[in-house]
């Protein structure tokens, strides 16, 4: 039988197989290759979309240079990049405990916004009437309480009635936005709904305006790493995340863990809100958080929920954002282009995970030849 050679065989061109394990350097090589490939595609897209590039192809160098220029060319830009990264990192840390528990909290945006609102409300009403240090403390408490409440509401519903946390937290974002609009209408009678910078309640600065924020977030990163990795509560979070049945078997009160963990998430969001409100803006708008609550989900996910690795991913995403913004400024193109660029690169980064988990096996060359012989 086996002597029959030239038979028509329709073997598929390639098939996929799950990898059992991959060496870390290989995984990183795949990720790096994906980013490079993403940048190349960005260049091609930009070449097609931007007229100036179209007419003068040599300027493609400028295109990539702008990317780096966005974050690193001046002292001011480096500080700004570090600040952006710190805030993003803080919110990413906030969503992480819940995510490790497989509680898909996509309400960090709203929780952080409520934190900003809480601390600004205190500054608005009490500014000037109490000593500065007391005002800052009260603002801090208000931010944490607001963030925690916003995180606790969906957690209580989940624990009590097993509601879907994803929808619930998403909707809570909109509620938060409208609450902010409501207060802006009350606080700014002129009708412009833009609250100017408040005079009171600014975080003291050492060295540089942003240094306090960066240090706080660094400490928080270490704290959360230890909390998740070495504390009993962190252990419980991992067990609940893996399997509720296992958690019950081991005697863990799953409801309590859900509530407690969302409390932690909410508190950290509140803290991020405080850093934004008291540390940077001294004001609140519906755009105070600016979508970072959603970006944080990706940062946390890409880092595999590891607070230390998150430092890398939040830096990467911040760099992408400021680089893309710089391009739109330098080339004088529409504000949608940065979104396109960020989208393309993220697509490649996330897509690369597929090739880390699976391998593609192509049909062997000799069989291909055999197939082409007969039809």
């Amino acid at each position, binding site marked *: *039988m086996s002597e029959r050679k030239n038979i028509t065989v329709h073997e598929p061109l390639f098939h996929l197989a799950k*990898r059992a394990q991959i060496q870390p350097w290989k995984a990183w090589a795949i990720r790096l290759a994906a980013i490079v490939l993403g940048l190349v595609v960005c260049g091609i897209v930009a070449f097609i979309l931007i007229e100036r590039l179209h007419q003068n192809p040599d300027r493609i160098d400028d295109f990539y240079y702008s990317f780096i220029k966005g974050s690193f060319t001046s002292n001011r830009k480096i500080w700004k990049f570090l600040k952006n990264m710190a805030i993003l990192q803080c919110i990413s840390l906030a969503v992480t405990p819940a995510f490790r528990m497989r509680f898909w909290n996509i309400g960090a945006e709203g929780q952080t916004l409520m934190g900003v609102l809480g601390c600004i409300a205190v500054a608005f009403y009490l500014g000037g009437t109490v000593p500065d240090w007391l005002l800052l403390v009260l603002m801090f408490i208000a931010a944490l309480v607001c963030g925690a409440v916003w995180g606790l509401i969906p957690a209580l519903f989940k624990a009590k009635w097993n509601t879907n946390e994803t929808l619930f937290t998403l909707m809570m974002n909109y509620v938060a936005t409208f609450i902010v609009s409501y207060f802006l209408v009350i606080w700014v009678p002129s009708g412009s709904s833009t609250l100017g910078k408040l005079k009171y309640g600014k975080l003291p600065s050492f060295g540089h305006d942003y240094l306090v924020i960066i240090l706080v977030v660094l400490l928080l990163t270490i704290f959360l790493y230890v909390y998740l990795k070495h504390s009993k509560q962190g252990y419980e979070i991992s067990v609940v995340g893996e399997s509720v049945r296992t958690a019950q078997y081991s005697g863990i009160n799953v409801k309590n863990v859900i509530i407690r963990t969302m409390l932690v998430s909410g508190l950290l969001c509140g803290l991020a809100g405080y850093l934004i409100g008291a540390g940077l803006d001294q004001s609140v708008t519906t755009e105070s958080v600016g979508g970072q609550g959603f970006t944080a989900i990706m940062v946390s996910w890409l880092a595999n929920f590891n607070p230390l690795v998150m430092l890398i991913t939040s830096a990467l995403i911040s760099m992408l954002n400021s680089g893309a913004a710089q391009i739109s400024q330098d080339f004088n193109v529409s504000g949608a282009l940065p979104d396109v660029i960020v989208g393309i690169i993220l697509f490649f980064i996330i897509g690369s995970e597929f090739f880390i988990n699976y391998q593609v096996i192509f049909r062997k060359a000799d069989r291909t030849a055999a197939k082409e012989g007969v039809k």
Partner: protein
Amino acid sequence: MEKNMALSMRGITKRFGSVVANNHVDLDVYQGEILAILGENGCGKTTLMNMIAGIYFPDEGKIFKDGKEVVIRSPKDAFALKIGMIHQHFKLVDLFTAAENIVLGVDEDGRYSMKDVNNRVSAIAQKYGFHIDPQKKIYDMSVSEKQTVEIIKVLYRGADILILDEPTAVLTPQEIDKLFEVLQRMKADGKSIIIITHKLHEVLSVSDRVAILRKGEHIATVNTCDATESSLTEMMVGKKVSLDIDRSEPVNVQPRLEVKELNCIDAEGIQVLKDITFTAYSGEILGIAGIAGSGQKELLEAIAGLQPIASGQVIFNNPKKDKPVTFFHKSLRKVKELAAQDAFHDKNGAPMRFKGMTNAQIRAQVAAENVLFREDEVMNLRNKTPLEIRSLGVRLSFVPEDRLGMGLVGSMGITDNMMLRSYRKGHGGFVDRKKPRALAEEIIKELEVSTPGVNTPVRRLSGGNVQKVLVGREIAFAPKVLMAAYPVRGLDINSSYTIYHLLNKQKENGVAVIFVGEDLDVLLDLCDRILVINSGAVTGTLDARTATKEEIGLLMTQTTTQRKEG
């Protein structure tokens, strides 16, 4: 025997990552024969068959059907070649009728007429001696009826090679006999039947030839008439294995766990346990037999505090034991009062009344754990959480059926899994990984767990090693009662015997062992008594030393009204 080749495979290789599931396997199947594929779990039996059925595509090798080379890329290709597979996990739509499931996915010319289909299904059933109602919905069917639907589904598509993946795993002895009769009839009709199994006596009773696989390689194909249980095992495992379980006589038997009139109602309002009453004694293994889903899982979970109990009692008889008093629950004044009532004694059993001692001296004595009292003997575990049960000092170990979904955390290493039941120990908010790590290393050494390291996620370990980790942890807890649900399911012969040996050792140490099993031969060899349950009620208790498989099989399908005491 006819010698017409129906299917042959040459040099079939399949890899999953670095794991070679099949390594250059050659296999021939003749027309009109029953070929058994025998091998331990994970030796690549199912993978090999999946490649014939179009589920997987081989990395290397060729398949020939009736002498012609073929390429099978999908189940559709397989059906076109008249190859059909009956999977271990049925692939049926619950809401459809038998006939609708059978016709699902069949691409026929002409008008779609359910009546025609029903008639054809009935005709096939009649031809081979099945009993089936084509209009019955799947959700109303028993496991064996569902299997019948799967088989007819394949026959309906005109298959002349049928592959059955562990068809007997879920059937009672009587149902197995019936299935084998049907298989013989199909064989007489000229069909080739491939049956995957790891039960030796079934291989010997039903097959014509046996192909043995070991670690992905084809070891040999022998005629069944020339084979014996021990020769097959030797080929399967690669070395001689003793198939005897040493069963010692129970010593110092005392009632340890008494379950009385236990009733449980699940979340859907269905009564899953009905008036269950039994006693587990120390120093014996109590087997629980029953068709899958008869309430075994619920019974163990109710005892472990994981399933709400509607009515009834779970009484735990703790042997008398000296326990040191602490100030954790009692104040100094209370301790002094109790001492005056002769509640305490020292390590030699002499009463302690703290006469002439200062408060500081009393405190020192208590702190040194010299002041002992006798613990309560009887405890009711009804509606206590697992945590409460443990804090009562009841050492109840539980090896659940779902190892990675309940007993262990798949993504964690062995060390972290060791802490699962004990991580609360110690003060402070941080976990202590030193002791769990030592325990993990001890279990790896003692039970010969093969793992790259203590921190390798247990999900990556083989079924046998996962089970060793779980059983090891539960035994390390020094239990008084050890409950194990299907502890050898999916394990190879060597690992299975390791587990039997461990359970026997626990029994000799005076533990009351409750063993839920599915292989009746093992239950009869290992246990002292066997409790048979059906639909959540006890249908009989048998002495394992005198009972027969048929007796158990009968009780497994009997209803409570025909209750019989053994």
